[in-house]
């Protein structure tokens, strides 16, 4: 008899196949996330996944733990309320770049500043996939999208730099091809207290890829040839540019008191 897929117990099997397009990297990053949860050996009944809206925002719908698919951009404040109300939960936010950094950008920087104990995984596919490939806060300058038909006049965020500057205590970036490093980073982040941020670069072959003449395997080749692992690199110097090179690695891993620790100390100590 054929054995089960090793991740079947963590999947809502009745909802697979998922909605992600053929060749979309979200599934691979989601799979890395499930492997990391397994490897972390955290009690699964205490693991919660919260997502926002968008292709990556569907993540919460496929994991067989308590999971919440919230509103566009609001996964982080929802997760903040949940974590503070029950600190024994391990709350993972799995969402996309548009959700977390355009409409939800304000929530991201404040949760990082407060050092809320969340593991935030951002699937960065450089555009809005769900709505058909519009420009995002992460779209490279001059790239074509349905709302920048002649090329993007804006410049993208450097997400790890933003996370670091806001106060995140764990910051890493990998591509979907670095599945083992990505899995390991998510596992480390889950086992660490404080606000953790992991950016996972990912092809969106159907929208971004098609308009910029990038077949998925070309993207992978670029990831293979252009990515440079620089653990501990200064986030100010980490380009994610397919010409200059894509710097990946674990950039930040520090400690500072979390919101809950400070709150307990200041407000709940006997007195």
């Amino acid at each position, binding site marked *: 008899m*054929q*054995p089960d*897929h*090793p*991740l*079947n117990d963590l*999947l809502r099997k009745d909802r*697979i*196949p*998922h909605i*992600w*397009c*053929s*060749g*979309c*990297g*979200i*599934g*691979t990053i*989601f*799979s*890395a996330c499930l*492997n990391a949860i397994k490897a972390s050996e955290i009690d699964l009944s205490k693991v919660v996944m919260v997502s926002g809206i968008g292709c990556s925002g569907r993540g919460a719908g496929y994991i067989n733990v308590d999971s919440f698919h919230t509103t566009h951009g609001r996964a982080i404040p929802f997760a903040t309320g949940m974590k503070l109300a029950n600190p024994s939960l391990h709350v993972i936010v799995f969402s996309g770049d548009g959700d977390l950094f355009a409409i939800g950008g304000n929530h991201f920087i404040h949760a990082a500043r407060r050092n809320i104990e969340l593991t935030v995984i951002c699937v960065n596919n450089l555009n809005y996939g769900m709505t058909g490939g519009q420009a995002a806060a992460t779209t490279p300058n001059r790239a074509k999208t349905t709302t920048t038909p002649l090329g993007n006049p804006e410049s993208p965020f450097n997400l790890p730099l933003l996370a670091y500057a806001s106060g995140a205590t764990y910051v890493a970036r990998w591509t*979907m*091809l670095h*599945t*083992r490093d990505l*899995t390991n980073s998510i596992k480390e982040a889950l086992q660490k207290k404080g606000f953790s941020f992991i950016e996972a670069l990912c092809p969106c072959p159907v929208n971004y890829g098609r308009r910029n003449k990038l077949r*998925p*395997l070309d993207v*992978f080749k670029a990831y293979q040839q252009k990515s440079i692992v620089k653990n501990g690199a200064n986030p100010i110097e980490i380009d994610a540019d397919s010409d200059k090179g894509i710097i990946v690695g674990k950039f930040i891993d520090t400690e500072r008191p979390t919101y809950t620790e400070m709150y307990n100390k200041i407000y709940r100590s006997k007195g």
Partner: protein
Amino acid sequence: MEFWRKPLDADDIHITRGNVYVLDDRCKGCGYCIEFCPQKVLKASKGFNKKGYHYPEILKPKDCLNCHYCEIICPDFAIYSIAQVVAEKGSKNEVNK
């Protein structure tokens, strides 16, 4: 596996072997598993699955090294490799992880 010189620990390490499985109907035919398998174990099927995709067929089952790469790169939870139980030189069975 052939060596140009016999490694000192050749008797202690054993090559892992795996059985690779495909869940045809979960597959969306992206071909990543085929492209990235270091052993070229897989090839695209001629036929289609329920959703109309070419799923991977196992061309050389014996060559699977249980490296799991197809499993972790697959976006659709459609392929995986399970370690083979190998008979040790001695007597007891051992499972590769």
